């Protein structure tokens, strides 16, 4: 595959079917912010299969525990949010930065543009960072975010969610997404949720209640696994092996 001066590297799968379209009229702000020209195919070369190697030096002492970033504890339901980051080949993605941000328990963000009449919490910033362990696992302690209104359509409310940002090990794997909670009654009117065309794909944004991880007299728990794009070539690896790797 390589010429005298050439360097061929394995690329990543293209997973367009999973993602929402950039032009989605139900979410009004997309109208002037989506390209109208067709996208140009970018072959995966060295710049695309690499990405920054970010270490523990990016983390502060309490970045993994959003309930311990102030003198007192925030209001709200304390929850553990944890899971595994894998690629679509089933391989864990170890040592990768996971960044989250969220509203407080009342549905208010600590942001100058968020002015709806819900209280701020002096003990909650709503920002967390961790690096996945050798098995691709991450774990945060936080409070369950509230729903909040926005102006996309009349009486619009965002379902409770936590924003997630992931790097993976390649530029192609970069992903910003949102984690939702099971049985939220607001999905039916939420264009963000509905922008994902495939219903099964929407469900991959849902955490599940995880009783085994709850801590008695302390915290409820949710598990959310995140799957980033894997390589184009399938490794010779059985589904069983992948599942065994899980716990």
């Amino acid at each position, binding site marked *: 595959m*390589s*010429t005298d*001066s*050439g*360097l*061929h590297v394995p690329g990543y*799968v293209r*997973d*367009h079917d*999973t*993602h*929402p379209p950039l032009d989605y009229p139900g*979410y009004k*702000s*997309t*109208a*002037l*912010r*989506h*390209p*109208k020209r067709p996208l*140009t195919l*970018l072959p*995966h*070369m*060295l710049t695309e299969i*690499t*990405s*920054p*190697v970010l270490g523990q030096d*990016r983390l502060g002492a309490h970045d993994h525990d959003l309930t311990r970033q102030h003198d007192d504890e925030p209001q709200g339901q304390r929850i553990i949010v944890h899971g595994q980051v894998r*690629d*679509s*080949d089933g391989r864990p993605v170890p040592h990768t930065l996971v*960044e989250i*941000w969220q509203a407080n328990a009342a549905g208010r*963000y*600590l*942001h100058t*543009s*968020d002015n709806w009449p819900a209280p701020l919490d002096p003990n909650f910033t*709503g*920002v967390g960072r961790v690096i996945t362990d050798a098995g691709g696992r991450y774990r945060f302690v936080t409070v369950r975010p509230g729903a909040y209104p926005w102006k996309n359509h009349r009486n619009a409310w965002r379902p409770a969610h936590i*924003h997630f*940002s992931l790097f993976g*090990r390649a*530029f*192609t794997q*970069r*992903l910003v*997404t949102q984690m939702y909670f099971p049985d939220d009654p607001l999905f039916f009117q939420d264009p*963000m949720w509905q*922008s994902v065309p495939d219903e099964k*794909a929407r469900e*991959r*944004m849902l955490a599940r209640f995880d009783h085994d991880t709850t801590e008695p007299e302390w915290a409820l728990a949710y598990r959310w696994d995140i*799957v980033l*794009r*894997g390589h184009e070539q*399938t490794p010779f690896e059985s589904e069983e092996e992948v599942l065994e790797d899980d716990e």
Partner: protein
Amino acid sequence: MSTHPTTPAQTVGPYLHIGLPWPDGPFAVAEGTPGAVWLRGTVHDGAGAIVTDALVETWQADPEGRFDHPDDPRGARSLPGFRGFGRCPTDASGSYGILTLKPGPVPGPTGDQAPHVDISVFARGMLHRVVTRLYFPEEEAANAADPVLGSIADPAARATLVARREEDGYRLDIRLQGENETVFFDI
């Protein structure tokens, strides 16, 4: 064929500023680094208005075209003080700025690629990132031979990826839609 379906993207929303910017985000190298250049630009929407709530990220090789990454078949090579990655939210004037070193040429499957910087743009109103590249105006010969630029037939479209030289660096404005819309990539 992959066995596990991937997790969908969602927008960064209007409150990305609480979670994503880093104090050192714009500095892929520290201020005062010899040879450092600013990559600057303004992000515009389809009406030509500035976009003040976007986040621009850059990823690139070092001045010798190397990456500090295990998947580079030539071996990982770190250049102390150089992160290769920049992250900057757009400000009240819709502008971003990343201080970095100009990358060297990077090998591709059919020969060298011209020096380039991969760029991701995230914003409220964008359900997924868009990806583009920045190329350097003084690299005329390398740009002419670059496989990615060469795959864009329309010279005006190609030109949207070539930065303009400025006093202390380069400028690449990003137009998300409309006249002179930036070329974005299917990545």
